[in-house]
């Protein structure tokens, strides 16, 4: 091995897995096909693609690890000049956690709940006998400091459940860096975090990479994120490489159509509509809490939504935006406040509402798969509200189901499929059709695009906008994603700790002057620009120094 050799050299990698589809004989599927990549020491390569692109699988292949039934069936993987795809379990044990380490998407699940953070952070270092326990702990504390964790001396004494999600993600980075590996695989390390937390973790990871000089594979579906930390980017689709280049080339001069589509995602233009006379839905002074909890989850929330328009409730996890949906649907009667719908007061509790009131207010959920009965066909799923609200049966019902399927741009033949035979985007479309079947005046959309890939999510947003223009249905759109809000909202309520922090038309809310929280929230959304992360962090540092 010489210094001119790349650290990681993957040649013509082929990865296969056994797929167990319901009702079918298990079959072999190619997950990754003919992918090659070279990573030099100290460099960071971003792997980007949608779900199913094989990016995590390739990341784990750098540890010669296959999840579940995944097998690395062809090609060569050289790490530090040694071929590892065919290495023995014993050789792999010596390499994993020493030469190459892994940072998982959900640190909350990847830390053992029964053991202290310090024990887990230094475990690989001790297991490989790289240094004494005292030295390892000293190094861990230094890493905690580099990653700006609070009280670095004592941080390791805590258990995983005692620290926040963002802190755990940084602790996982410390765990990966502790044995001084040559290569770290970051697998969507910030995807599960709120944007304001994501920017801090991203900054900490970038600092740690720079200070330790470690090389990294950074896996994500968010091009704006990967542009901040990588030197080069590889775009993957369906297990094949689409394009590979420097960050600058990929985001400024992409060669392939698919890359261009990924970059232009969320560029939907939406002209905002002005408030009309009477609101369709008026919530006034809503205060609510769950069961015997001591604190209110919502306090004094007032918003208006006009017929045929979209109100976006935007905020981070725990801001109370989903609770607001539960209050409006009657699942959680508020402790105080009233809801007026179409000029009439709406009974607070679900049981007290008439069938007609229920019909006018429908809901679409984040997880389309669990919102449908897996043993019913699409026809039964969409047909149910037609029977329940309009007493449509037989041929009349089927004709209406077909109309609705056309409306959601799913053609002939979908009526007899089961949910398991649909893709993620198709499932969400069926849920939209089911909501539309009731011919509602208002649909509450709770994070309906969060679980979808960007391009698929774009399609859903466009569909929702078309349907709104045609059917004059209003949306209460709950999301944490600012780009989605820009694409679809007419008015916006920014929620923070159970209160409305900022409320108005889209133009008013998204333009200065900002309050502190909205400013923090908006400036934390990654932008597809080189150096964006440094600029934001530097500005914030100056501002806090100025104060």
């Amino acid at each position, binding site marked *: 091995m010489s210094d001119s050799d790349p650290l990681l050299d993957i040649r013509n990698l082929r990865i296969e897995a056994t797929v167990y589809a319901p009702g079918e004989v298990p079959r072999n599927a190619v997950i990754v096909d003919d992918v090659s990549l070279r990573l030099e020491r100290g460099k960071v390569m971003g792997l980007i693609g949608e779900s199913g692109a094989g990016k995590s699988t390739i990341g784990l292949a750098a*540890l010669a*690890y296959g*999840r579940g039934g995944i097998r690395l069936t062809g090609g060569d993987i050289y790490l530090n000049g040694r071929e590892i795809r065919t290495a023995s379990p014993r050789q*792999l*044990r*010596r*390499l*994993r*956690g*020493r030469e190459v*380490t*892994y940072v*998982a998407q*959900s640190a909350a*699940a*990847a*830390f*053992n*709940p*029964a*053991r202290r953070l310090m024990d*887990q952070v230094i*475990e*690989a270092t001790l*297991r*490989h006998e790289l240094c004494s326990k005292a030295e390892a702990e000293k190094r861990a504390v230094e890493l905690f400091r580099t990653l700006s964790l609070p009280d670095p001396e004592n941080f390791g004494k*805590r*258990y995983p*459940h*005692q620290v926040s999600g963002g802190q755990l993600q940084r602790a996982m980075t410390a765990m990966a860096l502790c044995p001084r590996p040559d290569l770290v695989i970051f697998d969507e390390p910030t995807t599960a975090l709120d944007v304001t937390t994501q920017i801090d973790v991203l900054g900490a990871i970038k600092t740690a990479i720079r200070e330790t000089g470690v090389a990294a594979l950074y896996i994500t579906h968010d091009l704006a994120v990967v542009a901040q930390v990588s030197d080069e980017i590889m775009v993957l689709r369906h297990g094949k490489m689409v394009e590979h280049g420097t960050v600058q080339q990929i985001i400024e001069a992409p060669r392939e159509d698919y890359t261009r589509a990924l970059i232009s995602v969320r560029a939907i233009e939406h002209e905002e509509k002005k408030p009309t006379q009477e609101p369709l839905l008026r919530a006034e002074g809503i205060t609510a809490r769950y069961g015997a909890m001591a604190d209110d989850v919502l306090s004094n929330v007032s918003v208006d939504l006009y017929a045929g328009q979209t109100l976006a409730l935007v905020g981070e996890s725990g801001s109370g935006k989903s609770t607001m949906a539960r209050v409006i649907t009657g699942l959680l009667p508020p402790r105080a406040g009233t809801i007026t719908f179409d000029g009439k007061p709406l009974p607070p509790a679900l049981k007290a509402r008439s069938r007609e009131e229920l019909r006018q207010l429908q809901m679409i959920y984040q997880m389309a798969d669990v919102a449908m009965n897996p043993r019913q066909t699409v026809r039964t799923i969409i047909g149910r509200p037609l029977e329940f609200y309009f007493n449509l049966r037989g041929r009349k019902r089927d004709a209406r189901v077909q109309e609705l399927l056309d409306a959601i741009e799913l053609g002939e033949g979908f009526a007899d499929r089961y949910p398991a035979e649909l893709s993620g985007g198709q499932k969400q479309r069926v849920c939209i059709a089911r909501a539309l079947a009731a011919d509602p005046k208002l649909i509450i959309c709770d994070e309906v695009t969060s679980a979808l890939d960007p391009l698929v999510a774009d399609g859903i947003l466009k569909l929702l906008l078309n349907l709104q223009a045609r059917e004059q249905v209003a949306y209460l759109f709950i999301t944490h994603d600012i780009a989605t809000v820009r694409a679809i909202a007419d008015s916006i309520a920014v929620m923070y700790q159970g209160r409305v922090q900022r409320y108005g038309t889209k133009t008013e809310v998204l333009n200065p002057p900002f309050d502190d929280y909205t400013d923090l929230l908006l400036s934390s959304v990654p932008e597809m620009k080189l150096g964006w992360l440094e600029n934001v962090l530097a500005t914030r540092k100056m501002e806090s120094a100025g104060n």
Partner: protein
Amino acid sequence: MHPVLTLVIQRLALGLLLLFAASILIFVGTEILPGDVAQAVLGQTATEQALANMRAQMGLDQPAVVRYFQWLGGALQGDFGVALSNGRDIADSISRRLGNTMFLASVAAVVAVPLAIFLGLLAVRYRDRWPDRLISGITLTSISLPEFLLGYIIMFVFSVQLGWFPSVSNINAGMSLGQKLNAVALPAMVLTLVVLAHMMRMTRAAILNVMQSAYIETAELKGLRRFNVIARHAMPNSIAPIVNVVMLNLAYLVVGVVVIEVVFVYPGMGQYLVDHVTKRDVPVVQACGLIFASVYIGLNLVADIVSILSNPRLRHPK
């Protein structure tokens, strides 16, 4: 107050309540049997007058509630009355035999619990391969055989054929620990085989349940040995179900050894209970019932408390 302390105190209170309920059941159960102690002592031919005298003498003419509280009050002070069949103090006879039963149970437990957990870990380590199948096969066979048959087979092999251990497990206060261990070797072996399968399979299932977790993958990607991954990362998260099954089996070692004690003529509680049931000696049966109930409830209480303590979220609140 620390939330764990609150939980533990709640469990203790519940345990006491349960024990109280069990004592009522035991008393009522023996009460509704036809005939009473006076009848049992004097026999079918006794005159009405003799029975009445006997009842007055033994306090049996009092209402059942009064007698229940007298019995419970005595039991709480360690006074279970006298046995009808031989007139001896029950507490006296029991304490010696309870000690013997506990000794046998402890010997079996000390061997069986660590062995079961180790075999469980091993079965997970070599899941679906021959060591796993062998362990499952042997333990399932041993649990499927009736314990008296298992007892006689082991007696035949180790006592009759090989002559290593005595076939009759007689122990007394004058023996050294080594002599005692030698005496109980065979019944302890049978008990171990009987409880092994249940505990081992639960350990295997509980650990396999957490082997799917993301933190197991993290541990594997640290380059840890497979057995270390199982023992250090999976095991601490499956303590609660394992402890529950272990405690149920420990309770069985104390309460369920009747057959084994009879097979090996071991002077424990089981033998004592069987002897006195055949003689319809109600006070002895009640006393044994109450002691068995306490052992059962006590061990399950321990299991509950250990489960609570094994949860880091409860031990170390935010």
